[in-house]
């Protein structure tokens, strides 16, 4: 009926994916439980920022950069600084985004909502904060008066699926690369010594994300963009280097039994074994 695979994909992407999955193959020819190669490059923007990285999973690529501000800590936590994550996805990375970073085409249904940049930003920000990646008290400058506000900006450069994992890794890699400048007090105001010694902060926790696409009863690890278009749901697990769960987010998709969840946890654990040492090695980089 369809004279080419491309025609089927254009007219009925769900049937296109389902045909492949029935033969136990993915359109990208990857095995179900394999992720694309991950590359993490630190200090990609050394001059303007205090920590940066470029992360890519396959063709999905994001750059992250840290800018610092001095702010006043909340009265109930006089020694604590703050971490703030913002995410931007514009027309550069995918045609369905407008220049303001909002989704333009809204087909509704399917896990296409995953590509809503505000939802991804919210997820990455609260995961970074919840995972207790940095000891916020390390950001104290003067107790009760000033502390660092670490602002991580993540920009998606290319969207080929699984933006959540890439954005999360980019934010963590930038924080691993964070160097705080030296400060001194002048007339009661905090001044930054730009040429002074820089302090590297140690990450308290190394959270590693793994997103698994759900289609019928199949689990597709690290979905590509064409798979994401028609997925029924997504399961994102964030696990730290100790094997504890930071986050288990399942949105949409069929019911997963406890055995299915256990299988997913095994995949997440393997991911941690692979990526946690890489993130840790970023810390010892100069």
């Amino acid at each position: 009926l369809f004279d080419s695979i491309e025609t089927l994909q254009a007219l009925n992407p769900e049937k296109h994916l389902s045909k492949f999955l029935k033969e136990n193959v993915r359109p990208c020819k990857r095995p179900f439980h394999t992720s694309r190669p991950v590359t993490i490059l630190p200090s990609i923007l050394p001059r303007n920022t205090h920590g940066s990285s470029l992360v890519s999973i396959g063709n999905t690529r994001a750059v992250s950069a840290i800018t610092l501000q001095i702010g006043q800590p909340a009265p109930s936590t006089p020694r604590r600084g703050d971490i703030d994550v913002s995410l931007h996805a514009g027309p550069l990375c995918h045609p369905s985004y407008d220049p303001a970073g909002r989704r333009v085409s809204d087909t509704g249904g399917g896990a296409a909502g995953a590509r809503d940049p505000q939802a991804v930003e919210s997820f990455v920000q609260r995961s970074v904060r919840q995972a207790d990646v940095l000891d916020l008290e390390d950001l104290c400058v003067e107790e009760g008066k000033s502390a660092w506000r670490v602002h991580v900006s993540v920009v998606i450069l290319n969207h080929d699926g699984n933006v959540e994992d890439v954005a999360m890794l980019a934010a963590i890699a930038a924080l691993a690369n964070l160097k705080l400048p030296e400060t001194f007090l002048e007339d009661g105001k905090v001044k930054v010594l730009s040429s002074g010694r820089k302090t590297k902060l140690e990450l308290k926790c190394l959270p590693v994300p793994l997103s698994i696409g759900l289609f019928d009863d199949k689990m597709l690890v690290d979905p590509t963009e064409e798979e994401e278009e028609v997925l029924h749901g997504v399961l994102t697990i964030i696990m730290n280097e100790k094997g504890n769960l930071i986050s288990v987010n399942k949105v949409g998709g069929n019911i997963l039994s406890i055995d299915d969840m256990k299988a997913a946890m095994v995949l997440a654990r393997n991911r941690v074994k692979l990526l946690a040492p890489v993130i840790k090695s970023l810390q010892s980089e100069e």
Partner: protein
Amino acid sequence: KKNLPLSRPNSNHASKMKNDRTDGRTAFTLRPLSAEISPLTRPDGSAKLTSGHTQILCAVYGPASSRHLNRDHPTRASLSVVFNSQVHGATEREMERFLGETLGSCILAERYPRSVIEIVVQVITGDGGVVGTALNVAVLALMDAGVEMSSVPIATTCVFLEGGLRLDPGEDEERRQGSMPLVIVTDNAKEGVLGSLTFGSEIDEEDYYNAVKASQKASKAVLAFMRMAIEGKVGKECAMLWS
């Protein structure tokens, strides 16, 4: 008042068990539930659910033709969720996505091609379990609107306090230092996880599975309550029609 049947501890054991709950409930007891079906006349379906002090109102419009030309899908309904409350650092968009996808996986969308189903959730008072109660009240409102569903998703909010797993926490229990609230959505037809949302830091894998099992049990009680609420309303309407 909904109480899960618990194995009765003997008095010695009870006095040794540390009760760290604010209102003195036992670990797996849910707060009292009450519901009002069709409190609003304009929407196609509406419901108000009260769980303890948390009170949430939901309105469902649809299935209806979409207002924007590009928004409809040729073979199934599209879902749109409006939720105006931030929960534990998660913005409205993330919550809208979670509710939309979870409900969407249970709604028989193929029955309503080229339509839009709009679900509007309004939190009147929030005292813990906001996301879970929002999902449950949306289910009631969808039933009231007559939207066909393949299964009934029920959300249970759990929290891990110092003493262990506790179900249906109040706001102060959710916000305690070191507590980890999570929302598990289950379906009575099959065992397992339909949806899952976690807040807070580290949780042990075994603890997560225990939360899933406890949510499965608790959702049976919530489902029975929902059935009672809907049957009550339908019964009254039938009596009125035939009188």
